[in-house]
């Protein structure tokens, strides 16, 4: 076999030339399309397969190891099975595409593969590595072992010639003709990836070369025969595997472990099938022959049982299959406990299953970490033992009822394990891969990811009942419920609001109790008190009546009643995306149906998944957010709103306006939430002044405001809020300002802040492509029919309109106007700014606020104008 222009590589200088030329060929190869690569892969596999017999003969003749007929199988396997496994595998260009998510995976070659080939399987390993390199458009240089250099290079040459004939670039496969350790090391340092098959020394050298290596380690495979096993199958399989190529496969059994109960039976089975059980004296002689000072004697590797016995001066029949040495210790001081790479097998008697596991584990730790373990067992009845064995063995392959030489390399006795002659041993064995090495390890995969938009949603209570007089009608639906728990505050209770409800409940035969102890800014203690009562009352429906406080308190009671084990700190944990939050909110509604009936027009809590509760001990506020907290039914009956006091009307009304404006500006806003927000905004501007001024005397304004608040609630329940609410939350809690007023004080500042067209930082959300909030505010102005020649003017008109509204409903202009002392405000300003920055509402804001910017907005709002 001759190749044109083949220069002998026998020195580091020549190797440098070779590396250069293979790299050059690979650059061309990298451009080949899949179709052409597949053609080359096929031609190369066919050629290797055709030469399986001469290559096997050459390997045995040169190395003096193994059996020709078995090496033929290995060569056949390395060509035919590898081709079959990867014939249709995509390895070039786009190999995967997900159009709906906009993800594309592109395979590119790695470049130059440095392949170290062992003496035990020289031709088959060469065929394997060159074929997978061709399939992946890589160049490859083979470093043979000196003992097997001729047959190794023969195999490489056959694959190369066939590949080139089929169109591969000249010189895509190279090899070192006269191997030396220096050149092997040089190759490893110069390659892009190393496929190192060899002993621990070679694998370690590969890993320390500084290049990524797919190295494999030594095996010391224990085969445990459980008492449930089919003994004939077990013994025949082990003999078949252990004698295969005279035991040089690294996945071959090194020790058989047999429980005492079946030991004698198994032992005589081995003897009857042509194995020789060594006597004590013979075993001693064989020990000294196979292992010299703790290392394997090179002279026995891949030799027949007969020849090894002869070296030890032990007489056995020439056709003896395996020499079996009975041993007790699994430690390395016992020669039989080593990896023997020959038809010599250790046999252990285990006192029981646990002991068998112990022996197997020790053998693996002492010489086969990460490689392979084998178990013979009744798979139908002994699932527990299989699970124990799989868990305990520190190996990457657990082979059941299978000759392990054949089982470990895959696709012969099992059909979903990748066929391979390079078996990864995981980090246990100091390897970077824990599976059988294949084409996927020789490509780089580029992922092309298109910008994709997040799915959004509209979630509202399943029932929202509206219109004057809706309350008693809606409550008719509770027929069939047994016990209702009504939550409200003292004022509403005394004013008889709950009587409307309890009378109806009496009428339809639902038992009820009322908890009227909710104060503004409800506490955890209050919620716990209510939940205790619920626990004894066992309601199947909870009715919250009032403003934000009773509704929020009732939601928390609901949580505590259904899930007393919850931790509020976990529940209140800030999340960045409600769908990806770490905490899983408990399932709600399994014990009680939740109904919310607002009596003020502002909070929107009747249709939102939010609730805020204060821990009275620590003073911490827990803002909870999850759609599990969404009420099942909301009843908007303006009859309950008519007599709200002026202050409450203005504060809650302006809160509702800020909900609508923030939901409209939010990065999560959708056409659905936009229409809700716009409509609510318009209704509030139109009807809030009269509702404030005339109260019950303008029932239309009251009704419009009741609906506007709930509509705005639906908008922000889905689009969320922004930095105005973040700042209002902290301003309210630091300086005891009503929530609505706090929002009103920040609102105009926030509009100017968000409208900035070139902000220092924009919000992070896939569908938020550029800062466009000025336009959004202008849209609101247009919808309201406000004047303005351009967007800036429209924004100013909108702000003027807000300021006008605030004045009409008696809201003061600045924070200072509310009597907040300047020194106290400034002293705590930094802390308040940081906390506002970290508020849950900040995340949806279209402009990502810096802490200093928040501080500036607070200052502006305090003094009523830009103030440094």
């Amino acid at each position: 076999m001759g190749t044109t222009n083949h220069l002998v590589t026998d020195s580091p200088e020549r190797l440098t030339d070779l590396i250069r030329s293979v790299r050059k060929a690979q650059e061309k190869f990298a451009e080949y399309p899949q179709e052409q690569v597949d053609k080359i892969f096929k031609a190369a596999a066919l050629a290797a397969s055709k030469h399986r017999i001469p290559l096997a003969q050459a390997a045995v003749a040169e190395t003096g190891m193994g059996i020709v007929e078995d090496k033929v199988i290995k060569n056949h396997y390395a060509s035919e099975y590898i081709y079959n496994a990867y014939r249709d595998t995509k390895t070039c260009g786009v190999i995967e595409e997900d159009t709906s998510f906009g993800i594309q995976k592109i395979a590119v070659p790695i470049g130059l593969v440095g392949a170290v080939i062992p003496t035990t399987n020289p031709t088959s390993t060469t065929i394997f590595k060159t074929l997978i390199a061709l399939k992946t458009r890589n160049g490859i240089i083979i470093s043979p072992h000196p003992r097997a250099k001729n047959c190794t290079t023969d195999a490489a040459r056959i694959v190369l010639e066939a590949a080139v004939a089929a169109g591969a670039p000249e010189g895509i496969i190279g090899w070192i003709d006269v191997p030396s350790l220096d050149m092997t090391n040089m190759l490893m340092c110069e390659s892009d990836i190393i496929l190192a098959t060899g002993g621990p020394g070679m694998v370690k050298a590969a890993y320390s070369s500084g290049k990524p290596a797919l190295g494999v380690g030594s095996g010391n495979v224990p085969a445990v025969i459980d008492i449930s096993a089919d003994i004939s199958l077990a013994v025949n399989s082990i003999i078949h595997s252990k004698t295969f190529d005279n035991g040089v496969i690294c996945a071959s059994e090194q020790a058989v472990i047999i429980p005492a109960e079946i030991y004698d039976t198994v032992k005589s089975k081995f003897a009857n099938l042509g194995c020789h059980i060594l006597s004590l004296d013979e075993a001693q002689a064989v020990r000294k022959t196979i292992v010299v000072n703790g290392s394997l004697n090179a002279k026995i590797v891949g030799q027949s049982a007969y020849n090894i016995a002869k070296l030890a001066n032990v007489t056995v029949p020439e056709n003896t299959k395996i020499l079996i040495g009975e041993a007790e210790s699994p430690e390395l001081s016992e020669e039989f406990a080593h990896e023997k790479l020959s038809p010599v097998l250790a046999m252990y008697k285990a006192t029981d299953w646990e002991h068998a596991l112990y022996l197997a584990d020790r053998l693996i730790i002492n010489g086969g970490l990460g490689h392979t373990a084998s178990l013979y067992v009744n798979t139908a009845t002994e699932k527990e033992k299989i699970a124990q064995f799989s868990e305990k063995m520190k190996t990457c392959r657990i082979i059941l009822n299978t000759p392990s030489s054949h089982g470990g390399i895959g696709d012969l006795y099992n059909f979903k394990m990748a066929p391979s002659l390079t078996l990864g041993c995981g980090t246990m064995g100091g390897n970077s891969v824990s599976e059988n090495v294949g084409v996927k390890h020789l490509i780089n995969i580029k992922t092309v990811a298109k910008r994709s938009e997040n799915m959004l949603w509209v979630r509202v209570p399943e029932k929202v009942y509206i219109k004057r007089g809706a309350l008693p009608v809606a409550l008719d639906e509770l027929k069939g419920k047994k016990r209702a728990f009504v939550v409200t505050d003292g004022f509403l209770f005394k004013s008889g609001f709950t009587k409307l409800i309890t009378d109806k409940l009496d009428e339809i035969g639902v038992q009820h109790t009322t908890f009227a102890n909710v104060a503004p800014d409800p506490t955890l203690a209050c919620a716990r008190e209510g939940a205790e009562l619920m626990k004894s009352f066992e309601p199947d429906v909870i009715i919250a009546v009032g403003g934000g406080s009773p509704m929020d308190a009732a939601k928390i009671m609901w949580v505590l009643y259904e899930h007393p084990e919850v931790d509020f700190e976990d529940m209140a944990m800030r999340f960045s995306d409600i769908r990806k939050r770490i905490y899983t909110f408990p399932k709600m509604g399994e014990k009680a149906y939740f109904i919310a009936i607002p009596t003020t027009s502002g909070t929107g809590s009747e249709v939102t998944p939010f609730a805020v509760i204060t821990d009275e001990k620590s003073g911490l506020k827990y803002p909870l957010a999850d759609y599990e907290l969404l009420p099942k039914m909301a009843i908007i009956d303006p009859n309950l709103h008519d007599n709200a006091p002026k202050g409450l009307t203005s504060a809650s009304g302006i809160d509702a306006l800020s909900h609508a404006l923030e939901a409209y500006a939010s990065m999560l806003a959708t056409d659905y939430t936009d229409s809700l927000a716009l409509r609510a905004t318009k209704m509030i501007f139109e009807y809030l002044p009269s509702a404030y001024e005339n109260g019950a005397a303008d029932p239309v304004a009251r009704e419009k405001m009741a609906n506007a608040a709930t509509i705005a609630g639906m908008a922000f329940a889905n689009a969320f809020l922004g930095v105005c609410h973040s700042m209002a939350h902290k301003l309210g809690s630091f300086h005891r300002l009503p929530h609505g007023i706090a929002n009103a004080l920040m609102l105009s500042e926030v509009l100017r802040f968000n409208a900035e067209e070139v902000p220092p930082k924009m919000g992070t959300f896939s569908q938020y492509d550029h800062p466009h909030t000025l336009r959004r505010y202008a849209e609101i102005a247009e919808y309201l029919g406000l004047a303005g020649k351009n967007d800036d003017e429209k924004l100013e008109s909108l702000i003027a309109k807000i300021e006008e509204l605030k004045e009409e409903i008696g809201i003061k202009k600045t924070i200072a106007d509310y009597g907040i002392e300047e020194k106290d405000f400034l002293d705590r300003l930094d802390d308040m700014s940081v906390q506002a920055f970290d508020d849950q509402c900040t995340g949806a804001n279209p402009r990502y606020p810096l802490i200093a910017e928040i501080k500036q907005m607070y200052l502006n709002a305090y003094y009523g104008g830009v103030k440094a």
Partner: protein
Amino acid sequence: MKLDKIIAVRTAKTLYRDGNLAIKVFNEDFSKSDVLNEALNQSRVENTLLNVPQIHEVAKIDGKWAIVSDYIDGKTLTRLIEEEPSKKSALIAQMADIQLEINRQKVAKLNKHSEKMREKIDACGLNATVRYELLTRLRSLRNDEVLCHGDLTLSNIIIDNDGKPFIIDWSHATQGSAAADTARAYLRFRLAGYIDEADEYLDIYCEKANTPKQVIHKWFPIVAATQLAKGLETEYEFLSEWANVVEYE
């Protein structure tokens, strides 16, 4: 200097005593660099905590290189064992202690043990395949940088008349791995025919050093190959058997 009192004669050198001085005279064909290297090694080791004869002079006497150092008045461990065989175990244990003490020292400028081993493997005369395995093995073994004597034997330790142990013959000193140095000492026992003593030494050493024997065993093929480089016909079969082992897959 008077060269009339011969203490010992070796293949390539003769040892004389002149009062408090010991004079090691090398044969004419002995390599100058080896002589100077030995003197340099020893003078470097003098700076450690070990008891080492001090070098006073490197001279040329009648055309031959010579190293003049302290004469240690005492007996070698070999001699002590011969005189009192019942103390054998105790003396072997003392040698193990000395081995440990040597390997606790650091002498930064000495030659590297691994480089020396590599040169010796290249020159050991075994075939390329075996050398390839040995070099691969050498590369994979842990390489420390502690002081290695390189030829520690019972006869290279002298107990002076005050009972103080002195370590002599630093011609093979390097910096490398303690396990390799111990493997070498073990091999020297074996080559001298002291099989039981070798095993006893290894047992005691491993116990004291809290080192698994396998760690020392891993160096056996390498130290055997380096010994082969000396080209002694009588040791060939024994050493090549030790060297021809494999460790793969």
